[in-house]
C-alpha cells in the first residue's frame, strides 16, 4: 500500500451499492482516492495517528464503530434489498451515533453533517464486509413456509436475514395468545349443507386484538397490514390448535395444513360439531363464534288444550277441570314467538344436514333437536287436568326433563283468564235467600269462590279473622243453588268449638236452609237432602266412611291448618270424601310454611302443586334457598289464583278503623356501639368463613342476634342488667323524646321488644324517670296477663312494655294510640300482628307506629330488604331469620357490615286512611 496522506481532509464519495463508495484523502502534494476495500485498512489504523486531520478522524472513528457492529453480527438487508446495512439500530445505537457526530464535528462539518457521514460509513463498511452482494427478493417469496428446497440458499438466506432483523423490532409484540374458532357461512357452502370453520387467535387479555391464525404464517408482525403478534405467537397458536384437535378430532385436518387457515365441514362433521365438538371445545375454553342469525334459537313450545276442542262455549266450561276432564298436549319448535308449521317441522325432521333453510333464513339446527322434532311429529300426549292447569298458569311444562314454554289453546286460555281474574271481576249480586247485606269485599270473595268452584276447582280463603269467611261460604252455598250448579248438600268440617257458631250463622243468614250436626254418638246422615252438615275433624277422622258415602256438592274445611300435616289420618281421611268442589278456610297466614300450603291446596285442588316430593324439589327447596327469585315469582303465579287473603288493614276492608301511620325513626350508633358492632362483625365473619355448615348456621344466628342487641343498647349486648343506661344508645334518647311528647298529650303507648332483657332495661330506665309501666312477657301467667290488659285499658299506666315472640295474639290493647318497636322483627307479619294489638276493631284514634332503626346497620338493611320484598313475602315468604343463615359469606358480609349512613328512605313509609 502506498502512502496515503492523513493530515489533509478526507472526503467520502458515496456510490450505489455502498460497497462501491470511495474515500478521497488529500495531502500537500497529491490526493489519493481509495475504494472502501482500500480505505478500511487506512482508516482502522488512522485512529492511532496523532496528527490526522479531523475529517480523517471522523471517518476513522465511524469505521471503527461500523466494524464493532459487524463483529457483533448486527447486519441486515437494506429496505430495497440491494445492500447490507448495519442495524437495525436501536435507540441507544442512534444515541451513540449522535454523540460520536457531536464529538467529531469540525470546521464546516457540523454535528448534523457529521452524523450523515457516520451513517454512510456504517452502511459502506457493512456492505463491504459481507463479501457477497445482497440479492433482491421477489415479492411473494415466503421462504419460511416454502416447502421446496430448490429455491436455494441465497434467497432464503436473504429472507432469514431480513426476518432476523425484523424479529428484533417485533420482540415487543405480544406472544401470548388464545384460540377461538369462527364459523363462516357463505351462501354456496350453505347450499351444500356445509360451513367453514376458521381458526383465529386473540391476544391474551386483549380479546379485541384478533386475527385469523393464518395471518401468523402469511403476514409480517408489524407494519401496515401486520398482524401485531410476535413471531413466537405462531408456536402458541399451533399448540392451542393441537389441544383443540385433541378435544375435537375433526380439527386435526387443520394441523395437517401448512397454514392452518380454515376447514370446510361436511354435514357429518358439522353435526358432530353441534353434538360433541361445541361442548368439548367449550370445556377447554375455546369458543366458537357463529354468524349472526345462523344459530337463531328454535325453542320447543308446547300446545296444551282440552280434548275435543273447538265448539265448547262458555257454559260448557262448567266442570272443565272436573275429574272427567281430559287435556292433551303436543309440542313444536318455535322461531321467535311463532311455532313452525307442520310442513316446516317435517322439513326439519327430514333434513340430512344440520343446515336448513327456514322462512328465508339459513339456520343451523342441533341434531338432537331435529331428532326430537322427528319423534314429536304427530304425537299428542294426554294430560291430567291439574297438570294442564299448572301449565296454563306458569306458562311452562316439563318435557323430557326440561321445562318448555306453553302455548295454551283457546279453551284453556279462556279458563286461565277466568281463574286469574276471578278475584277482580265485578262482583256478583248477593244470592237470593241470604238474609244479610254483604260487604263489597265479601261479595268479591263470593264471586271468586263461585268462579273457581264453577269450573271445578278448589280454593283457599284466608282472610283475617273477623272478616266474615263464614257468611261468604253461606253465600256460596246459596249462589250455587241459584245457578243450579249444586247437586248435593254442603259439608263443613271444623273444630268442635265452632260447630255452634256455624249452625247459628246459617240459621241467621240463610233461614230455611237445613242444618245438621254430624257429631257425637247420635249422629246419622239419614234422609239427607240438601243444606249444611257440620262435623268435627275428630268425627270425620273416625267416620269418614259414612261421610264418603254422600254425594256432596261442596266440602268446606274450616280452620284448615288442622290438615296441614298431609300424612296425618285426619288429612288422609278428609281426602277420601268426594265432592264437586272444595273450599279451605283459614285465618292464619298459611303462606309462611310452604309444606302446609301444599297440604291445604293439594286437598282443595288435587294435583295442582304436584306430588309432595315433586313439590319439594320443584318449588319449596329453590324458594327456601332463595337462589332463584324467578322460582318464587312463578310459584306465586301458580298459587295466587287459589289463595285469597284480605287483611283488616287493607284499604276498604274495615273502614271503621282510623288511619295508621308507620314511621321509621332513624338513629345513629354511639362510639361504644360502633366499636362493639365492628368487632363482632370482624370476629364472627372470620369464624363463619371457616366453619362447616352446621356450625355456620349457629354462628350466623349468634351474629345476627348479637348485632341486634348492640343496636339496642350496649348494656343489652354486654349483659349488664344494672349497667348505665343513659348516653350509650340513641334509641334511649329518642324513646325519651317520643315518650315525652306522647305522655304530654295523654297518649298511651305499646313498647315492643323481642328481648326480655331489653324490656327490663327499659323498665328500669322508665322507673328512674318516674313513668309508670306495665311489663308483659312470655313467662307472665294468664291471670296476671289479663289483669295487666285490664289495667292498661283502664288507663292506669300509659306505657305497656311487651316482649312476646308472637306479638301476643289475642291481646286487645286499643287504649294505645302509639306503638313503638324498639327493635325489628325480621318477619313483617309478626311485626304487624304486634301492631294490631292496638290497631284493631275498637280503636277510635289514629294509631302511630314508630320503628326505631339504627342507621347503616343490619337493622336498616333488613328493613330495606323487607320493604322491597313485602309483596313477595305476602305471597310465599316469611322464613325470617333462618333464611338469612343461607346467605353466602359475601352476601352476609354485605348485610352486616357497618355502612355509613346512607340516604334516608322516606321516613313515612306507609299510611292508611
Amino acid at each position, binding site marked *: 500500500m502506498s502512502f496515503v496522506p492523513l493530515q489533509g481532509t478526507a472526503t467520502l464519495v458515496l456510490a450505489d451499492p455502498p460497497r462501491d463508495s470511495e474515500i478521497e484523502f488529500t495531502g500537500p502534494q497529491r490526493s489519493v482516492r481509495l475504494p472502501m476495500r482500500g480505505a478500511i485498512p487506512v482508516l482502522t*489504523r488512522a485512529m492511532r495517528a496523532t496528527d490526522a486531520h479531523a475529517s480523517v478522524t471522523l471517518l476513522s472513528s465511524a469505521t471503527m464503530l461500523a*466494524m464493532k457492529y459487524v463483529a457483533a453480527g448486527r447486519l441486515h438487508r437494506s429496505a430495497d434489498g440491494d445492500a447490507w446495512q448495519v442495524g437495525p439500530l436501536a435507540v441507544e445505537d442512534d444515541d451513540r451515533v449522535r454523540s460520536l457526530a457531536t464529538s467529531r464535528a469540525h470546521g464546516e462539518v457540523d454535528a448534523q453533517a457529521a452524523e450523515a457521514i457516520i451513517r454512510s460509513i456504517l452502511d459502506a463498511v457493512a456492505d463491504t464486509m459481507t463479501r457477497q452482494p445482497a440479492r433482491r427478493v421477489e415479492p411473494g417469496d415466503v421462504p419460511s413456509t416454502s416447502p421446496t428446497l430448490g429455491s436455494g440458499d441465497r434467497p432464503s438466506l436473504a429472507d432469514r436475514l431480513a426476518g432476523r432483523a425484523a424479529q428484533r423490532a417485533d420482540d415487543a409484540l405480544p406472544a401470548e395468545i388464545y384460540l377461538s374458532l369462527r364459523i363462516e357461512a357463505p351462501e354456496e357452502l350453505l347450499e351444500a349443507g356445509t360451513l367453514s370453520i376458521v381458526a383465529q387467535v386473540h391476544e391474551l387479555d386483549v380479546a379485541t386484538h384478533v386475527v385469523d391464525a393464518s395471518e401468523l404464517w402469511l403476514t409480517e408482525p408489524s407494519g401496515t397490514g401486520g398482524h401485531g403478534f410476535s413471531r413466537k405467537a405462531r408456536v402458541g397458536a*399451533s399448540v392451542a390448535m393441537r389441544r383443540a384437535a385433541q378435544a375435537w378430532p375433526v380439527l386435526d385436518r387443520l394441523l395437517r395444513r401448512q397454514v392452518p387457515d380454515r376447514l370446510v365441514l361436511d354435514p357429518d362433521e358439522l353435526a358432530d360439531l353441534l353434538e360433541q365438538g361445541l361442548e368439548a371445545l367449550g370445556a377447554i375454553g375455546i369458543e366458537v363464534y357463529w354468524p349472526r342469525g345462523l344459530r337463531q334459537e328454535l325453542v320447543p313450545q308446547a300446545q296444551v288444550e282440552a280434548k275435543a276442542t273447538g265448539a265448547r262455549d262458555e257454559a260448557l266450561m262448567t266442570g272443565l277441570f272436573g275429574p272427567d276432564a281430559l287435556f292433551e298436549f303436543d309440542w313444536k319448535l318455535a322461531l321467535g314467538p311463532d311455532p313452525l308449521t307442520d310442513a316446516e317441522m317435517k322439513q326439519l325432521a327430514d333434513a340430512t344436514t344440520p343446515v336448513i333453510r327456514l322462512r328465508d333464513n339459513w339456520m343451523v339446527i342441533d341434531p338432537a333437536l331435529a331428532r326430537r322434532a322427528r319423534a314429536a311429529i304427530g304425537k299428542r300426549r294426554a294430560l291430567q287436568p291439574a297438570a294442564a292447569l299448572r301449565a296454563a298458569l306458569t306458562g311452562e311444562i316439563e318435557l323430557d326433563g326440561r321445562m318448555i314454554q306453553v302455548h295454551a289453546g283457546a279453551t284453556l286460555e279462556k279458563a286461565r283468564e277466568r281463574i286469574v281474574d276471578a278475584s277482580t271481576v265485578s262482583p256478583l249480586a248477593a244470592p237470593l235467600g241470604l238474609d244479610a247485606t254483604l260487604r263489597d269485599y265479601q261479595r268479591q270473595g263470593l264471586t271468586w269462590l263461585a268462579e273457581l268452584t264453577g269450573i271445578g276447582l278448589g280454593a283457599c280463603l284466608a282472610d283475617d279473622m273477623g272478616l266474615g269467611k263464614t257468611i261468604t261460604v253461606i253465600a256460596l252455598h246459596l249462589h250455587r243453588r241459584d245457578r243450579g250448579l249444586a247437586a248435593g248438600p254442603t259439608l263443613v268440617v271444623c273444630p268442635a268449638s265452632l260447630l255452634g257458631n256455624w249452625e247459628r250463622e246459617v240459621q241467621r243468614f240463610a233461614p230455611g236452609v237445613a242444618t245438621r250436626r254430624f257429631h257425637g254418638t247420635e249422629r246419622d246422615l239419614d234422609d239427607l237432602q240438601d243444606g249444611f252438615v257440620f262435623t268435627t275433624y275428630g268425627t270425620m277422622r273416625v267416620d269418614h266412611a259414612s261421610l264418603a258415602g254422600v254425594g256432596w256438592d261442596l266440602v268446606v274445611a274450616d280452620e284448615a291448618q288442622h290438615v296441614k300435616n298431609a300424612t296425618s289420618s285426619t288429612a288422609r281421611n278428609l281426602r277420601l270424601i268426594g265432592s264437586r268442589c272444595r273450599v279451605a278456610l283459614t285465618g292464619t297466614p298459611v303462606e309462611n310454611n310452604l309444606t302446609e300450603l301444599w297440604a291445604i291446596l293439594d286437598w282443595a285442588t288435587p294435583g295442582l302443586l304436584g306430588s309432595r316430593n315433586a313439590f319439594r324439589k320443584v318449588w319449596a327447596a329453590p324458594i327456601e334457598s332463595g337462589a332463584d327469585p324467578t322460582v318464587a315469582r312463578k310459584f306465586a303465579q301458580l298459587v295466587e289464583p287459589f289463595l285469597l287473603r284480605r287483611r283488616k288493614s287493607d284499604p276498604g276492608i274495615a273502614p271503621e278503623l282510623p288511619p295508621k301511620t308507620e314511621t321509621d325513626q332513624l338513629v345513629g350508633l354511639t362510639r361504644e356501639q360502633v366499636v362493639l358492632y365492628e368487632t363482632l362483625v370482624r370476629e364472627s365473619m372470620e369464624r363463619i368463613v371457616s366453619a362447616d355448615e352446621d356450625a355456620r348456621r349457629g354462628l350466623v344466628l349468634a351474629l345476627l342476634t348479637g348485632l341486634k342487641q348492640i343496636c339496642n343498647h350496649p348494656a343489652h349486648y354486654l349483659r349488664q342488667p344494672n349497667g348505665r343506661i343513659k348516653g350509650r344508645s340513641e334509641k334511649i334518647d329518642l324513646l325519651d323524646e317520643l315518650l315525652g311528647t306522647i305522655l304530654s298529650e295523654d297518649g298511651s303507648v305499646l313498647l315492643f321488644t323481642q328481648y326480655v332483657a331489653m324490656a327490663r332495661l327499659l323498665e328500669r330506665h322508665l322507673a328512674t324517670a318516674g313513668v309508670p309501666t306495665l311489663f308483659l312477657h312470655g313467662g307472665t301467667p294468664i291471670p296476671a296477663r289479663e289483669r295487666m290488659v285490664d289495667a292498661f285499658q283502664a288507663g292506669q299506666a300509659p306505657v305497656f312494655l311487651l316482649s312476646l315472640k308472637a306479638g301476643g295474639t289475642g291481646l286487645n290493647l286499643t287504649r294505645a294510640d302509639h306503638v313503638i318497636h324498639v327493635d325489628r322483627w325480621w318477619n313483617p307479619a309478626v311485626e304487624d300482628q304486634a301492631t294490631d294489638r292496638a290497631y284493631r276493631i275498637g280503636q277510635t284514634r289514629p294509631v302511630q307506629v314508630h320503628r326505631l332503626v339504627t342507621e347503616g346497620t343490619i337493622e336498616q338493611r333488613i328493613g330495606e330488604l323487607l320493604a322491597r320484598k313485602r309483596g313477595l313475602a305476602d305471597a310465599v315468604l316469611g322464613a325470617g331469620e333462618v333464611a338469612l343463615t343461607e346467605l353466602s359469606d359475601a352476601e352476609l358480609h354485605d348485610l352486616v357490615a357497618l355502612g355509613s349512613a346512607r340516604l334516608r328512605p322516606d321516613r313515612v313509609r306507609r299510611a292508611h286512611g
Partner: protein
Amino acid sequence: MAETGDPLVFARRGRVRGPSARSNSWWARAWVRSFEETVLEASDLITARALARAGRLGAVMVISGMASAVLDPGSPTAVIAQVRVRRLDGPAWSAFDAELAREAGHLAALESGELPADLVEHADDAGVEIVPGPGDVDTACECDSWAQPCLHALALLYQLAWLMDSNPYVLLLLRGRTREQLQDPAAVLPAEADEAAARAATILALAQDAPTGHGLADTAVAAYDDEVSRLL
C-alpha cells in the same frame, strides 16, 4: 456459527426403575439402535444401562452437537463422559425447516413432546437424516478404557435416550438446532453475517495494535494494510 443456543441441562436423576428407564418413543429407540449396533460386547450394554439406572451419572448437559455428564460426581474416581453427534449442515436444516413448516401441527407436536414420524420420514426423503446413524456418533471419556464407546459413554447414550423420550428437542439439539431456532428459522444467524462478524472481530483486534506511522516506506504500516486487506 452460533448454533449452540442455550444448553439444555438435565438435573441428576436418582435410581430409576420401570418405564422411565426405558425408551418408549420410536425416536429414542432408533437412537439406541444407532449405538448399540457398534458395541462389540453385548454385556457392556447391560452394564452401561445398569450404570445409568443406578443414577450414577450427574447432571447431563446438552449443547449443539454434544452432550456430557460426569460419572460419580464428587467422588475421587469421577470421570467426564462425552457424546458428540455430527451436526446437520445448513442446507440440511433448511430442508428440515421446510418439512417442519409443511404442516402446522408439526411444531405443536414437538412442543407437546412428540417427534412426528411423518415429519422425519419426509425429511428422510429429502435426504435429511435426523436420527443419527452409527457413524454420526462419537464418544470420549476421561477413563482409561480403550473400548469405544466406553461404559461411561454408553451409560450417557442410554440416559440421553431416556431424556429425548419426553423431549425430542434433545435429539434435535444434538443434531445442531435449538428449540428457538426451529420455531423461528429467521433467528438463525446467517453464515455470511457470522463470517463477516469473525473477520470484523479480527480487524478490531489488529487495530488495537495498529502502527502509528504514515506508511511512507514504513514496513509495519504496509504489513498492517496487507493483513487487513486480506480480511476484506
